[in-house]
């Protein structure tokens, strides 16, 4: 069976279940493993094994994707149709094999599985070759024209702040918890922007935020300010620092920030 139980030193049991890409993948595996003739599948045998596999998955508390259940139903239906006596009909006029459709699907899928294996080989070969990549020194990157900071850029920058700033863990017990509201934070950002002469880098903006919550609220406040066009954001070059500043005139530099 494709289930492999092995004991791990400290974490107790670690269960490895061969990963199947879907019900067709599992069926093909069963057929190949048992060395069965795909053109003449013993449906009863395969159905039992398929169900046994699903049962193992259930025992291991794994979520069984809906597709696996649909296939189980198909197999059971096929099995019962194979078992039912067929209405007597002239031998030369036998109806289509109920398994034909399934076999066709399996063969069709297997074709692409072969191609996938071929692509895997090509990938392996090509991974040994290195070509010049498009990545260049950030210093050499052309300046980004105003108006091209997107929400995605801001999110990427936030991620860097969260990673870099080694944000303090929130203490286990807090006596009077300081309430951080969006409104307060927005006011604070505007005040700090004014204090620093109308320009503040994204990184500096978050330098005083001590906890994860504070960083997140400050980020939401910044998004809200951008949405209301009370501040603007600009990035000098790709991967460069994002600068937050008070809008001058009617320059609109940020794409509409969706909530």
């Amino acid at each position, binding site marked *: 069976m494709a289930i492999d139980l092995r004991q791990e030193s400290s974490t107790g049991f670690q269960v490895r279940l061969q990963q199947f890409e879907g019900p067709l993948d599992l069926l093909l595996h069963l057929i190949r493993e048992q*060395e069965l003739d795909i053109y003449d599948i013993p449906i009863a045998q395969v159905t039992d094994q398929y169900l046994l596999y699903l049962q193992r998955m259930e025992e291991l508390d794994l979520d069984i994707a809906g597709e696996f259940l649909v296939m189980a139903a198909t197999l059971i239906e096929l099995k019962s149709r194979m078992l039912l006596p067929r209405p007597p009909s002239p031998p030369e006029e036998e109806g289509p094999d109920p398994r034909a459709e399934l076999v066709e699907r399996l063969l069709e899928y*297997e074709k*692409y599985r*072969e191609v*996938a294996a*071929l*692509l895997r080989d*090509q990938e392996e070969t090509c991974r*040994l*070759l290195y070509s010049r990549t498009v990545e260049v020194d950030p210093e050499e990157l052309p300046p980004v024209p105003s108006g091209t900071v997107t929400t995605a850029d801001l999110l990427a920058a936030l991620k860097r702040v969260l990673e870099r700033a080694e944000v303090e863990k929130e203490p286990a017990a807090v006596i009077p918890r300081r309430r951080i509201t969006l409104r307060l934070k927005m006011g604070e950002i505007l005040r700090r922007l004014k204090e620093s002469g109308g320009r503040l880098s994204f990184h500096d903006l978050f330098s005083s935020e001590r906890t994860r919550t504070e960083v997140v609220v400050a980020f939401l406040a910044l998004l809200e300010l951008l949405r209301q066009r009370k501040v603007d954001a600009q990035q000098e070059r790709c991967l460069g620092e994002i600068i937050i500043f008070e809008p001058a005139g009617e320059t609109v530099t940020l794409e509409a920030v969706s909530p």
Partner: protein
Amino acid sequence: MTSDGGSLSLDDIRRGVECLLFVSPTPLTAREMALALEVDEALVERAARELVSRDPSQSGLMVREVAGGFQMATRPDYAVAVARFVGKRAQKLSRAALECLAIIAYNQPCTLPEVDAIRGVDSSGVAKSLLDKGLIRELGRKDAPGRPVLYGTTEEFLVYFGLKSLDDLPDQAVLEQMVSERAQAVLEETEDASVEDARRMVEQVFPPDEQDPEDGAQADAGEPLQSL
């Protein structure tokens, strides 16, 4: 016909091609290089082919034909050193991603429901990551209920897998043959296996002479002779 390159010899053109391939981050077509070198495209093509088939001992670099053009790359023999220098490469594609790509490559333009039908599972997550990697792209929408998005493979797909064009992939007839041969091979293997089983049984009853008596005892206890 454009100019034949005037005084430029084929050697000159080949060196020029080498320069262009050296600076370019993407594969270059003979046409693109011909424009830069101001020589005939056919000559550029010939010069580039000479570089492709150049004696491997001449350089650590090689020129490969890919995605309808030519690209310079390091030779595989030096992959370990280069990897040590430039660091980890992106993760290999998952099997699901490869299957999805295979289906799109052969059926493009095709929709995700069509991919799902063949794979028997939902492919939307996989497709999204392939889009992000630039290996597939949207080609429009199908004139069908729900107007599903049509997908196709990109030039990056060809570069990633080192294919000159989609024609490098085996055609449907070859694939069908591959699959039926495999089914056949499994059956033959089954026959081989039964012969093998028979041989084992015979050997269990009549252990070969060189067999260590202790091993022989084990075999009598019902263990197959694994040393054979």
